[in-house]
């Protein structure tokens, strides 16, 4: 259950959003063939930077930090409580 802090609209329920994937520095993504490059995921357990599309809101793409172990958002990597 996520309360996603949209930079434009404030905290909103996750059902308003579409997930857009983990943001990685270009150098991190393996490039050993067309198939593997796109399918091999970092799938990080911990703090990640992710893209979200606020479909039922401002309809903007936003980039947020989330801790995938605790589901907490925040610039410090989710140490800020979400409520």
């Amino acid at each position: 259950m996520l309360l996603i802090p949209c930079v434009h609209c404030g905290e909103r329920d996750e059902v308003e959003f579409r997930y857009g994937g983990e943001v990685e520095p270009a150098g991190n993504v393996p490039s050993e063939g067309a198939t593997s490059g796109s399918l091999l995921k970092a799938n990080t357990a911990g703090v990640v930077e992710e893209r979200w599309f606020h479909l039922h809101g401002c309809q903007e793409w936003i980039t947020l930090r989330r801790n995938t172990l605790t589901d907490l958002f925040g610039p410090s990597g989710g140490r800020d409580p979400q409520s």
Partner: protein
Amino acid sequence: MSYVHYSALSLIRHGLSGQRYWPRLWRDAQPKASYDVLIVGGGGHGLATAYYLAAEHGLRNIAVIEKGWLGGGNVARNTAIVRSNYLLPESSSLYDRALRLWESMAHDLNYNVMFSQRGVVTLAHTEHDLLKVRQRVEANRANGVESEFLDLPALKRFVPILNTDRNVRFPILGASLQRTAGIARHDAVTWGYARALQRLGVDIIQNCEVNGFDVERGRIKGVRTTRGAILAQKVCLSVSGHSSILAAMAGFRLPITTRVLQAFVSEPVKPLLDTVVMSSTLHIYVSQSDKGEMVFGLAPDRYPGYGPTGSFHILEQSMRNVCAYFPMLRRLRMMRQWSGIIDASADGSPILGKTPVDGLYINTGWGSGGFKATPAAGWVMAHTIARDEPHALNAPFSLDRFRTGHLMDELGAGAVAH
């Protein structure tokens, strides 16, 4: 610690002493310095792998290491459904091998795993569903997997409590039925394998979490754990929900996304559902346990994560569907809800085989449907580890397929999409 074969005779003999002196099923072992084969993950798949390595390939110096306690992971957090009505020939061969092994498991392990072949019904709610369901039935039959189509009157006779009226958002149009599918007691599977491993001399080591691998010139030498370093000639990762984390420690990436999947059970009631009902349109699967609890499996969360709880809106939507399609369950109280984390592969099929590190093998990517494959996954992984090459059944499920492009796009993978 002795081993007692379960039989009517042993029951009578222990009855004479008031059933007080049964030996423990298995022993909590201390890690030794080195093993021939080390299985990481004491779930159903890991235990089954160790079992077949010992029982069919004659290896003895084996350990299963588990970061928590035996049967504390996904083997105890699933909805216990076993079926083999998959679409692709490679998948149905693998899952049908599992179904055959399930049928003889209680006998093989000398332990009642309460495997109940009560049938699994897959509902169709739209014309497209109907086409898919019919296609699956025909594909199954062509692949030698028993499957049949139920029209509405036949479905109503088979599952009387199902609402087949048109007063719902997605009226039911028909269903497929695999009569040989069913459910098993998942805890008993764990205990049965653990007891068999005890008899075969395999170490089960709990509270032993892997935090690194020792790799020399591309070959595995051992693992580093919270209970010290353990040398091993071969290591098998069998860690649903944590495969990417361990693969990263070993220096490679997987085509895996980890998601939270939840389920819940109701208070126990008298028998009212003697089969399993699932629907991919509604994202639910429903059965009744032997204790009488109604068991509900839900959809996975829509974003990746290792989080502690599932999304509330998924629970809410599933409840609404349960009330609409099983109206007599409306006033049931839910007793508990839980979630587990699953490793879903990019093409919906499992990964069973070698990794870029020599001597390191992996079993992952089952998404929401790994429990049903437990014995077959163990069987093919044991073959792969013992001979250092995959069996024909798991050769199509190599990790390498994501490099070569020979994907196993299994549309029938889950009761729910993942």
